[in-house]
């Protein structure tokens, strides 16, 4: 086995080849040694207990202002020399047509070793124990009501470490630790089908399952599926809505977060022309924060070796900041924010969110709903998606009517949509509570993120319903 010193030396040597032999302006090498455990349970059947090893190296070079990237699942120096040669040669070719060569914002050289300190390291928990926990969730859900027809539990944990060495002299070794589970349940009664899901995740450790018991998790998912059996389709049209923290999180992530990723802002996203401008009500303050201890979207250094910040995106309705990598920070003359993330050694780092949320204010839930004559309370989401023109969509898995300031009958399969620049002005109430949910975001690659906020009220938004 290669120790840390040898691996650092190996990566340094690769970077030297890029800069000295092939004329790269900049080179970075990332290596990972990761261990994964995964389980899928369906109706108390263990579909497979899985364990995997993934070792590999990613090399990224900047040659004549163009990026070259190569990835190999190997720590062999001969193979790596071949990969760095490929990366430099291809970058040089691509650079021939560049109009605007890529430059990088300066950053401090970092040398660090980041240790994870779990109370319960998932790597030390026996497979039997993990199966027992997942079975507990499965049983609790299926036993909740006989109309629950199916329940899946997907579990995974990831441990190991990642290495980052740059030609500028940075050298970082970080422990990686993720624990995650998704529970889905379906219910059926008299030809009506319903579906419910819940995700939990943490970078702390396996103690996640001490905070939320198997029984509570299983019942929560089952209860939602059962309640929806009596729900009706919402009316389509514009309505006032009150959103729960989990829906607010996805709303912030989709309706604003993606637009505040500097690469998408540069691509022509609607925030490009709105920096420093007021695009929302005074109640709207959003952050993207990579420093919340134990949160699913938290890490100390990003995959360009930049420390993860707490980044203010919008303050009292005014656009205040963007999420950057070193390339976009240079273009905006801003500080890199530590948002450059790569899913694994197979892909290059791109700008991703971390923990994105709305800051709480001072209202109670009762105050938020009391003025709503006819609208909806959307408590839990199923998914969401954004577009650069500011169109967002959030699908709802748990919702209720609000009639004359009171929560009424459940509705199912609603969604909300609108344009960010119009909708943020419609935020007319923000609660004092706060919750952060784990999630996974797709942008070509998957990133582990968190999002959340308090309860909020939006005075007018389009609700998609089939009634």
């Amino acid at each position, binding site marked *: 086995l290669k120790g840390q010193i040898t691996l650092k030396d190996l990566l340094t040597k690769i970077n030297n080849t890029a800069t000295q032999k092939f004329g790269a302006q900049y080179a970075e090498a990332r290596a990972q040694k990761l261990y994964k455990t995964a389980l899928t349970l369906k109706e108390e059947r263990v579909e497979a207990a899985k364990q995997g090893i993934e070792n590999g190296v990613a090399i990224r070079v900047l040659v004549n202002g163009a990026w070259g990237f190569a990835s190999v699942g190997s720590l062999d120096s001969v193979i790596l020399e071949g990969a760095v040669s490929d990366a430099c040669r291809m970058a040089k070719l691509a650079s021939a047509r*560049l109009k605007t060569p890529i430059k990088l914002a300066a950053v401090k050289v970092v040398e660090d070793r980041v240790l994870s300190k779990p109370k319960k390291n998932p790597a030390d928990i026996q497979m039997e124990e993990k199966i027992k926990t997942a079975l507990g969730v499965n049983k609790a859900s299926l036993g909740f009501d006989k109309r629950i027809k199916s329940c899946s539990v997907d579990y995974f944990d990831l441990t190991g470490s990642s290495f980052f060495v740059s030609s500028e002299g940075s050298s970082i070794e970080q422990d990686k630790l993720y624990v995650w589970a998704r529970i889905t349940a379906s219910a*059926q009664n008299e030809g009506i089908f319903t579906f419910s899901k819940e995700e939990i995740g943490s970078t702390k450790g396996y103690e996640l399952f001490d905070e939320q018991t198997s029984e509570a998790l299983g019942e929560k998912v089952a209860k939602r599926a059962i309640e929806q059996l009596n729900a009706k389709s919402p009316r389509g049209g514009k309505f006032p809505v009150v959103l729960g923290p989990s829906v607010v999180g996805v709303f912030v992530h989709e309706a604003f977060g993606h637009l505040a990723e500097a690469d998408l802002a540069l691509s022509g996203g609607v925030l490009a022309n709105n920096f420093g401008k007021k695009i929302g009500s005074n109640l709207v303050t959003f952050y993207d924060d990579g420093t919340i201890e134990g949160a699913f979207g938290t890490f100390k250094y990003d995959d360009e070796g930049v420390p993860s910040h707490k980044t203010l995106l919008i303050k009292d309705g005014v656009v205040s900041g963007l999420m950057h990598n070193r390339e976009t920070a240079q273009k905006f003359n801003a500080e890199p924010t530590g948002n450059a993330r790569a899913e694994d050694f197979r892909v290059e780092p791109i700008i991703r969110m971390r923990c994105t949320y709305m800051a709480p204010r001072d209202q109670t839930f009762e105050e938020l709903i009391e003025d709503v004559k006819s609208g909806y309370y959307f408590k839990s989401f199923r998914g969401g998606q954004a577009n650069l023109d500011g169109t967002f969509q959030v699908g709802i898995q748990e919702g209720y009517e609000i009639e004359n300031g009171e929560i009424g009958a459940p509705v199912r399969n609603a969604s909300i*949509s609108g344009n960010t620049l119009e909708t943020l002005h419609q935020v007319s109430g923000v609660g004092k509570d706060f919750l952060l949910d784990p999630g996974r975001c797709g942008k070509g690659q998957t990133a582990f993120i968190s999002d959340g906020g308090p309860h909020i009220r939006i005075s007018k938004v389009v609700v998609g319903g*089939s009634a």
Partner: protein
Amino acid sequence: VAVLEKNTMISLAENAVKAALNMGAVEAEAYVYEGQASNIGIELGQISKTNRIIDRGLGIRVVANKAIGFAYTNIVEAAEAVEKPVASALSAARVSKPDPDWNGLPQKKPYANTAKTFDKKIVALSSEDLVQIAATMLDAAGQVDKRVFPIEGGVGSGYISTAIANSNGITGFDKGTVIECSVATLAKENNTVTPVCFEFNAARNYDLDPAWVGKQAAKMAVSALKTKPVETKSGKVILTQFALQELLAYTLINAIRADSVQRDQSPFKGKLGEKVASENLTIYDDGLFVGGLRTGAFDGEGVPHQKTAVIEKGVLRNFLYDNYSAKKDGKESTGNASRAGYLSTPGIDTTNFHIMPGNKSSGEMLSEVDDGLIVYYLQGAHSSNPVSGEFSVVATPAWKIKNGEITHCSRGVMLAGNIFELVKNISVVGDNERQMGQLISPWLQVENVRVIGQ
């Protein structure tokens, strides 16, 4: 790095199976995967990045006492490297819970020949060739209109090979190529930004038209600049392949998977032989479709690919099976076990989901709509209810059709409904078949779709 040869791939798989049996597994199956890809990337209107990715690995599934263990590794160079995942899979199986329904790995069956899945011209393409394709696409997009900005895209060529072996004597090897080019554009005028418009080519053989891709993506963006609202009502909607691919993947396709049916998650349960859709709708799952993006000799368990009737003239004919779900129903696998390379155990998925074409041209379809919408891109389809088939999505954007002509674009239009009602209301099927991921389909016109305007 040279690709792994057929013999090397097969012996890696066979040796892993042997090792597992020697170490006490009752049954074993090994899947070896190699992928090599080169990509030229477009970002912010210029070719500015490249990548070269080599990914190979081995996944091993073992059975001990009717319990399943799985392990994978991406270190396959040394023979002893294989022993570790085999031991790991076995230890996982030994502590796992036995499955009384487990009824063995699949048996050996002959493979059919596949056509047009490998093209040595793709393997021989140089990075210079790929840069040239990207430049052609980018230039074509730029020449359409000054208001168009190509935000991202690229050109990629890939070689993929798989080998499989199991303790019932299955051994298989297959290799294929793919090439694709794509570009996402938007158009800007004053303070208006259009939604992202996208076009692409993807093929197993070297058959690309990058200039068409660039031009088409740019034209779409320009036509999305001027918008007017549409009213809230139920009406005719033409769904193009982009919209169908999104919508069907999260709704209808779940309902025809045998595991969904067995787990009471499909409204199609008990409806084989019944009329479930418009008689205009015929769908085959065809793992042998000539040049299909998901065509191959065998599935993720080494079962031969085949052509399976799913819906014929509106009548539900078959569900899609892997080995496990088939044995549970006393049937044969339809060759629909799918895997994410070496990283996962098999699960049921479509191969090429082929909606059979009709006889109306796209021009005729448009000209015969007095009042309706045509929808290319959808947003939020993944938030559909995967069991009930209810959806509530945004068309980004939709184009209004009036008296047989496209009149204007409209933003923020929502479509809401239920896929099982929608398939009953398919009134016209186009002849303009196109392949998009797992879907091969023409345009479909649907009546009475709930449209929520602004």
